[in-house]
Each structure stands twice: as structure tokens, then as C-alpha cells.
């Protein structure tokens, strides 16, 4: 759900130096990435006219041999269909991207953009022309070779055939041409730092010209795994791609098992039905897995921010003082402890701890007295607000605490459960809500949320919009970074939402499982890095 444009600032990724955050108990992924220092940052910073070429394979962290092993991983949301060109839904991307489909470029664990199906790429100094040198030895799982013609087809197809709103990320492309079977040239209509980043997301996925007939059921890509079976309502089985161009995946058969009930998923891990819980939805249950000889808990970070979103268009919430009062009224430390067992990071503006501009801002520390005073000043001492709760664990967990703390300053909250379809209609589309709790998972999405006054939050600040636009056009990382920081600081002051916490990437696995990517920086769940000792 939440198909938003990833307002991303590509080059900023390159100055990331944040490694693995808070891995515990026999954690995974040996940090073999060597390109995390700022000096090498320019190599991937395409708009600076640099050239980038990466290691031959992307699975740098695994050296496990390819055996006959099988593994089952528990997931929450089953894909609706397997066609992410027509249907929104994080679950499809999670299952297929980087596993079945690959992109020309990808993000590494440090958030840098590195080559994948492209051997290397260059950008012209004006930032308008990108040239990709493609790998010559890549085959699709249907046996056809991957050529520049397929890349052109895939890029053009986003504009012509895709339905989800993310396709807008391709609007800036004015032409894509195959200059040779292994050379792709893309011309942009304007310099855009977000375009190259978007090429690492699902809109950058490479399809075969002959393999798009039945994407909903038969995905055909170049990735390390191929789809073997989809047992609807139960599981997706992936088989190692024997003709993969890179290192073969260590595990031969990967089963992605879907659990509508988080407790069933925990029980399956306890009884050996699965080996990995991909997302812990009930952190209070982690004490069951405290035996480190048997289990490991991976506590990484994601790009998601859990927000108490306010509808800034309603009369009461349009008043800055009321929004400030709500911000002051919430003791976010207690909320994080009681709702999510303290896992995650407190944030004061729209950023993830892995973002280079992460600053420990806290403009509205817990102060219920100040909240009451502000409400009285605004003439809203007897305020009643509606709270729409989507069917997700963190919303149900945080809601009672938020309701209790708002009641303490005199705000009555009426909550209601809504399913995703209703949430999209009433909250997202119709702006018919007061408050909602939602995790905005996509990376670098601040411009999407706060740079568009028609977005569901309804935050309208022209100065912030100008800063975002300026950042997207900026030619150096530093300049973009400064603009970005300034914008986020202004947003924090305006308190359009309350940032409850930065969502952790909590994973539990059998102790023998290795190679799970700890920090989730993209929408994909990489399977080919995972092995078993």
C-alpha cells in the first residue's frame, strides 16, 4: 500500500557512513563493504560526472557454497498478485525485487548506489545523460539473453504500461536508447538526483521483452532465484536460478511462508516450521527467543518512520498551537518502551538513523503542562479528535498509550479500526480523518510527505517546498544536504505530525542462519545472501 513517490536524493546516499546499527546476539552480514568512506563517495555520485564500477557480484557478504539446503522464512503480508507493475503492495517487491528481478544499479548496505546488471555507469557533467555499460553474460530465466534492448523496453514500459503511482519516477526520462547490445543511454529532461535512486527501486526492475505476458503469475527476471510455486494463501517457493550470472545462492530452495497471525509465525519458529521471522510484530514476545544458543535476534534499522499523522487541514489541527500541544503531550520514550518494547530509535523530524543528516532534534520534549497551556490559548480545552487505526501491530500497540496521554491533557480521542482499503479511501484520498498512526516505510520520502500540500497530511509550507526542489537540482552532495537539513528542521518546528519512533528491522532467526541483511534500506528482502551453517 502507500504508493508514494520516493522523493529520493540519490547522491546524498553516497556520503552514508553508517554501518550496521545495533546488531545483537550472533548477528549476521560481515561488513565487507569497503566503499563507505566519504572519499570514495564521488565514484557513485553520478551527477558529479564520476564513473562507478563495482565488484563482479553483489553478494559480497556471502561466501557460503551453494548446497542443497532448504529454508523457510516467515512473512506477514502475502502478495496480492506477483505483478508490481500493476498493483501496489510492499509484499510483491519484498518477495521479488533482487531475488527474481534485478535492477541496473542497487543500494549497498551503506546506502551507496553500486552497479548490478550494469557493469558501470557514467553521467554527463550537466546531469542529463547517463550511460550504462551492461553485463554481457546475463540471461533471463526463460532463456533469453539480457541486452540493452530489454533495458530500453523495461524503462519505456514503466511510462506506457505501469499503473502504480511510483511510475512517476520515470517521468523525467526523455529517451532511453540501446547504443549497442551492452550499452544503454538515458537522457533526462532535467537533472534529477532522485532518478538514479529510483532506478534501484522496483521501477528500475529489468524485464525480458518476451517475458511479460503473465507477470501476475509467472515473473521472469535475471535474479538469483526463480519462482517455482505460489501456493496461494500459504507460501511462495523459490528455486535457485542455475543459470545465474553471479555467485549462486547458497540455499537451493527458499520458501516464503505467509502468516496472517503474528503469533502463529512465532510459534512456527519455536517449533521448527520456519527458520526466520522476517518482521517481529510483537516485540513483547521476543523473550521467548532469549536462548542465544538456539536463536538470534537481529535489531537493525529500516527507513520507516512511525507517525501520528495529523490532518493539518481540519480547523483545530490547522492551528500550530494545537499541533504543538499534541507534540508536547506525548511522552515518546514511554510510548516506544510500552508499545514496542523499546526497540527502535526516537526521532524528532522525518529522518531515519541511517540518513546522513540524522540529528538528535527534539523540539517538543514531553511537557503536559505546556500542552494544556497551549490548548487553552488556542481555545481548544475541550477537543475531541478521531483516530483511524490501520490493521498493523504498531498502530494497535501505540494507540492505547497515545489515547491515554492525550486524555491527560484534555483531548478526547475516538479510535476506530479501518482496513487498508478504507484507510486509503478516507485518510489518504478523501482527507477525512483527524489522526492516524502509520509507518512511512519508503526511504527518503520527506518530499513526498511534506513537499506536496495535497498529500494526505495537508502540510503546506512554500519555503520547505522550495528547499526540496533546490535540493533535487543541486549539483553537489553538500549543497543538497544543507537544503535538506534546513527543510527538515523547519518541518520539525511546524509539527505537522508527531514522529513516534524510527521503525526497527527486528528479525528473529535460528542461530545457524547467516547472512540476513540487518539494515533494511530498500523494499526488497534479499534471499541470496542467506546461508545456513
Amino acid at each position, binding site marked *: 500500500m502507500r504508493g508514494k513517490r520516493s522523493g529520493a536524493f540519490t547522491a546524498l546516499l553516497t556520503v552514508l557512513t553508517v554501518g550496521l546499527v545495533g546488531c545483537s546476539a550472533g548477528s549476521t552480514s560481515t561488513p565487507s563493504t569497503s566503499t563507505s568512506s566519504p572519499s570514495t563517495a564521488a565514484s557513485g555520485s553520478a551527477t558529479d560526472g564520476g564513473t562507478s564500477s563495482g565488484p563482479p557480484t553483489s553478494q559480497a557478504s556471502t561466501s557460503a557454497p551453494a548446497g542443497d539446503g532448504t529454508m523457510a522464512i516467515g512473512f506477514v503480508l502475502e502478495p496480492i498478485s506477483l505483478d508490481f507493475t500493476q498493483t501496489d503492495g510492499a509484499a510483491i517487491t519484498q518477495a521479488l525485487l533482487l531475488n527474481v528481478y534485478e535492477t541496473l544499479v542497487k543500494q549497498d548496505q551503506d546506502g551507496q548506489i553500486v552497479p548490478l546488471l550494469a557493469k558501470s555507469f557514467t553521467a554527463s557533467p550537466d546531469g542529463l545523460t547517463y550511460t550504462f555499460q551492461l553485463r554481457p553474460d546475463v540471461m533471463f530465466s526463460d532463456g533469453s539473453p539480457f541486452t540493452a534492448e530489454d533495458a530500453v523496453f523495461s524503462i519505456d514500459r514503466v511510462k506506457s504500461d505501469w499503473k502504480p503511482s511510483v511510475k512517476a519516477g520515470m517521468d523525467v526520462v526523455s529517451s532511453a536508447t540501446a547504443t549497442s547490445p551492452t550499452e544503454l543511454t538515458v537522457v533526462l529532461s532535467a537533472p534529477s538526483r532522485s532518478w538514479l535512486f529510483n532506478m534501484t527501486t522496483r521501477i528500475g526492475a529489468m524485464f525480458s521483452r518476451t517475458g511479460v505476458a503473465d507477470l501476475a503469475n509467472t515473473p521472469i527476471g535475471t535474479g538469483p532465484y526463480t519462482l517455482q510455486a505460489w501456493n496461494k494463501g500459504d507460501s511462495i517457493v523459490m528455486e535457485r536460478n542455475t543459470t545465474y550470472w553471479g555467485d549462486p545462492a547458497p540455499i537451493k530452495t527458499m520458501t516464503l511462508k505467509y502468516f496472517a497471525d503474528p503469533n502463529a509465525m512465532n510459534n512456527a519458529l519455536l517449533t521448527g516450521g520456519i527458520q526466520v521471522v522476517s518482521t517481529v510484530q510483537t516485540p513483547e*514476545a521476543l523473550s*521467548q527467543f532469549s536462548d542465544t544458543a538456539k536463536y538470534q535476534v537481529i535489531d537493525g534499522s529500516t527507513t520507516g518512520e512511525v507517525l501520528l499523522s495529523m490532518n493539518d487541514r481540519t480547523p483545530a489541527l490547522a492551528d500550530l498551537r494545537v499541533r504543538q500541544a499534541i507534540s508536547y503531550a506525548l511522552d515518546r520514550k514511554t510510548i516506544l518502551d510500552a508499545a514496542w518494547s523499546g526497540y527502535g530509535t526516537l526521532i524528532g523530524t522525518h529522518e531515519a538513523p541511517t540518513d546522513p543528516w540524522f540529528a538528535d532534534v527534539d523540539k517538543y520534549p514531553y511537557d503536559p503542562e505546556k500542552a494544556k497551556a497551549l490548548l487553552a490559548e488556542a481555545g481548544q480545552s475541550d477537543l475531541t479528535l478521531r483516530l483511524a487505526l490501520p490493521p498493523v501491530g504498531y498502530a494497535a500497540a501505540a*494507540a492505547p498509550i497515545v489515547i*491515554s496521554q492525550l486524555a491527560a491533557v484534555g483531548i478526547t480521542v475516538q479510535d476506530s479500526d479501518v*482496513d487498508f482499503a478504507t484507510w486509503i479511501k478516507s485518510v489518504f484520498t478523501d482527507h477525512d480523518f483527524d489522526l492516524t498512526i502509520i509507518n512511512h516505510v519508503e526511504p527518503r520520502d520527506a518530499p513526498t510527505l511534506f513537499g506536496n500540500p495535497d498529500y494526505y497530511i495537508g502540510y503546506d509550507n512554500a519555503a520547505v517546498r522550495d528547499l526540496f526542489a533546490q535540493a533535487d537540482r543541486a549539483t553537489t552532495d553538500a549543497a543538497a544536504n544543507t537544503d535538506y537539513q534546513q527543510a527538515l528542521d523547519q518541518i520539525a518546528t511546524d509539527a505537522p505530525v508527531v514522529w513516534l519512533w524510527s521503525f526497527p528491522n527486528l528479525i528473529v532467526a535460528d542461530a545457524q542462519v547467516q547472512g540476513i541483511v540487518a539494515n533494511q534500506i530498500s523494499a526488497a528482502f534479499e534471499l541470496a545472501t542467506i546461508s545456513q551453517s
Partner: protein
Amino acid sequence: MTELLSTPPGRRSDRRVSPLIVVGAVLVGFIALAAVVSFFWTPFDLLYLDYQHRSAGPGVNGHWLGTDLRGRDIASRLMVGARTTLYVGIVAVGIAALVGTPIGILAGMVRPGISEFVMRTNDILLAFPALLVAIILAAKYGGSVTTAMVAIGVASVPGFVRVIRAGTMQVMSTDYVRAARVAGRSGPATAVRHVLPNVSGLIIVQASSAYAIAILAEAGLSFLGLGAPASVPSWGRMLAEAQSQLTTAPLTAVWPGSAIALAVLGFNLLGDGLRDRLDPRLLGR
């Protein structure tokens, strides 16, 4: 969730106040009392969260039955949960009785052909159990307490129609009603004067059984997330929320689970006991 579409007849000879009624009445009365008291007083404020004592056992920091995983007082939530349970039951059974009774009486008084038509239609409705209706409504409107109540109510209508029709047919075959009809008493007058008073016992018995089913249905729907929202305490939802702590704090699940079972038991015993005391001829068996 299981539902009794009809309950077996009890022994009919028993004319004493059976122990069933006493036990049932005590259980139901206790729950009703808890619900009524909760309007005026609960051990803790519902919005109060004891952050320092989450998932605490009974007696800790003044919490009689302990706290749940967010630090809410379980005893207070059980009391208010009784309110939710009774409220959903009253509305659902009310819908069923108000719709089902007149149809049942009508079907018992009209010509056999029309009566058969009504019963065949009723059989179609019988193919839609509460959970199915609730999911249909949730698919169209989204789940809420309202859809849950309507679903349970609609699904309980056929049971009422069946039982009331059978009772009405018994009443209609009695000599004094026949005499009244011969003397020219109109249909509506007969229905109000003779049939309704005579089937009122049946209505109470059927309501009691339907109530037990409604409690189970409500708990099941809340368990699936199709019932009460987070801030409205509901036994089914409390049980669902306690699941993640089952190995570490099993009592948080035991309390709401027992509450549901005792409430259902209470209404079932009451229904069975009342049925035993009822005029056996009205049972139409």
C-alpha cells in the same frame, strides 16, 4: 466458534426450580452486575496505564487480576468488557426477536402454502451463519461493533422464526383459540390476545440461547479484528492481544477466556433451565 442452531429438549417432567436455572442466573447476574457497576466505578481508570507494571500478576500494585501487556488493569477492562458483551448481545438478540417473532407468529397462523414459503425462505437465511454475515458486511463496509451486532442479529432471526412458528401452531390448535376463531375473532386480535402471551416463554428461552451464541460470535469477531476497536474493551480482543504473551504471562489470556466461557455457560444453563420449566406442548416435539 460453534453455534447451536437448535438446542435439544431437556427433560420435561421436572417442575421444581432446577439447579440449572440457579447456576445460570447467578452467572448471568454476576456479569450484569459487573457491567452495571462499571458505569459508576472500576478499580482503575480505563485510560490509566501502569507503565512500570506491565503484564503483572494478580495483586501487583493494587491490580486485582494483574495488568495486560500495555499496563492496563485487567479487572477494570473485564468489567467494561462485560458491558460490551451484554450490549452487543442485547442489540443482536433484540434484532432477532423483533424481526423473528412476528414472522414466526405469522408463519404459524397463515395457510400452509404461505407458511411453507416463509419457512423455505427462512431455510435460505439459515445457510448464513453470523460469522459469514459479519465477513460479508466487513467486506463491504469494514468491520465494526455495528456490523458485528447486525450480523449476529440477522443470523439469529431464522432460529426465532422456527421456534415461534412451532409454538404458534401449537397454540392455534388449542380448543379455546379455535373457539375464538369460530366466534369471529380476527387474525391480528388472536395473535395479540392468545398467541403472543403463550409464546412469550418461548421467546425468552430462545433469546437466552441466542444470547449465548451472540457472545461466542462477538468474541470470535473481535478475535479476528472485526469487532470492537482498541479503546473499547472486549473479551475477545483482550484474548487476542494476550496471545503474544501466552508463554510468559498466560494469566492475561486466562481471565478473558474464562469470562467468555462463563458468560456462555450462564446463558446456556439459564436457557436450558427455563426450557425445562416451560409447557412441553409448546416445544412442539
